């Protein structure tokens, strides 16, 4: 199948430190791709490159075979890419409904029409609100719509982030450690949600995660990074028996 999001030989330097060293990644359309690696392997930096929050010095970035090396983050949403953050990054002082509505910002049409409430803008606004309700129901947040985001428990906040990302009608979604800090029950629930996002909504998913059970059970294909470079790639079964991966995680016995 076609490549949805691809980076080739991307290198990122912070001063003298090389965070990503000639990293390549190819996300196939409609799949769930896992990105794993020990702490400091450059996973989050790679994510920031893919969502254009981080500039890179060398390499190429493609979205559906289109070069997007110099796109700005907000333009990625228009392309159809949404992301969540590792540390929850919500509009804490705003209600859950506003949080989700902000996610659908790329659908508001002409901002000046929205500003003066033309009939068309009001129709869009009603439509977006309806969609926000549906997204909330999808993620079981329908009782929290009027609650301020900061008052929600941790697991719910994670789902609000997901809802906000989904509200932009993405075709590909980048999830940065979606179950970090969640308990077992919440993890199981998110596992199902991620699967549903992929199967029912047909959204490509890229997932950075430390929770191996989640990665191994959900992902179709896995990339392993170590010290900012590609280490291995393959199906979950291949990865689990890959000697380099075992070394990287458990250390070699020398």
């Amino acid at each position: 199948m076609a490549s949805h999001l691809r980076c080739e030989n991307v290198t990122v330097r912070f001063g003298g430190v090389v965070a990503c060293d000639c990293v390549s990644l190819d996300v196939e359309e409609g799949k769930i791709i896992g990105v794993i690696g020990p702490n400091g392997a450059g996973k989050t930096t790679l994510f920031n490159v893919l969502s254009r929050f981080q500039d890179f010095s060398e390499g190429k970035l493609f979205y559906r075979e289109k070069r997007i090396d110099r796109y700005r983050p907000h333009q990625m949403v228009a392309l159809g890419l949404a992301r969540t953050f590792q540390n929850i990054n919500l509009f804490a002082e705003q209600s859950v409904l506003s949080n989700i509505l902000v996610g659908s910002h790329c659908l508001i049409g002409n901002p000046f029409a929205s500003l003066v409430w033309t009939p068309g803008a009001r129709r869009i606004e009603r439509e977006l609100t309806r969609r926000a309700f549906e997204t909330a129901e999808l993620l079981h947040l329908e009782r929290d719509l009027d609650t301020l985001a900061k008052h929600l428990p941790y697991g719910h906040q994670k789902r609000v982030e997901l809802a906000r990302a989904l509200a932009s009608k993405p075709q590909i979604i980048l999830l940065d450690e979606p179950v970090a800090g969640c308990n077992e029950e919440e993890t199981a629930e998110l596992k199902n949600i991620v699967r549903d996002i992929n199967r029912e909504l047909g959204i490509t998913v890229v997932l950075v995660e430390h929770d191996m059970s989640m990665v191994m059970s959900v992902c179709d294909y896995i990339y392993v990074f170590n010290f900012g470079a590609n280490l291995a790639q393959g199906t979950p079964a291949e990865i689990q028996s890959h000697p380099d991966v075992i070394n990287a995680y458990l250390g070699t016995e020398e």
Partner: protein
Amino acid sequence: MFGQLAMSGLATGSLYALTAVAVVVVFRNTRVINLAQGDFAMIAAFLGIVFLKDFQLNYFLMLPLVIVCSMLLGVLVERLVMRPIADTDWLTLFTATLGVYYILHGVAGWAWGRDTKAFPVTFDAKPVSILGTLVSEGHLVNMAWALGIGLILFLFFKYTKQGIAMRAVTDDPETAKLMGIPVRFIVMLTWAMAGFLAAFAGLLLAPILYVSPGMMDEVLIKGYVAAVFGGLYSIPGAILGALMIGVAENLAGGYLGAHFKTATAFAMIVLLLTFRPKGLFGIQARREI
């Protein structure tokens, strides 16, 4: 002409530096942009007149008295106004110092009147030749004072327990608290230091600007600009900013005309902020996600 303008610019700049450093010291420990800093100095100047004239005290007897009063004023403002609202955002704190500004203005006008008064001690304008340029003696005395205060501050921050604790609070108030540093006391000390610097700023500027409730308004703005110039966190940056502004505005005043003096300071700061949004030595924003 150039050398002379630059020299007297340095002298003025070193007096701006007293205010700029006070703005930085208070800001980096409490997030407060202290608009009342100039009025602390103004009150100090008035107190100087009171002690010299009404009490007939000697200049060097008056000096410590004014310093103590000024430091007390700083502590008082911290206790009565800033501490109750310390948890709010910086804009509220900023506006609160504006309230203090109004109050101190009112108090000074009420107690001593609105009209300008001469300061009883003046320095000779007698020129002295240094490195081929003529400098007035008063300017030299002021520069010497400013240099001495700078040295005291340096030693304080470098070697005393309180100075090191203050730096720790600047770096990370949460950790400082966990390390057992009495953050509240340090904040109080910060305001006392603002009062200390204000006492000198007021007494040294009084012979030049004369004494009135509004005497420090312009100096405050320039001190603030200088502090931002240096990045709001750096004391050497603030001093450098103050000196540069002093020299630049004096040159602009000499060559372009007096009413371009203040505009020069702002032209400089706007230009700088356009290219370095966190000032010259500020911590430039890192893209952390």
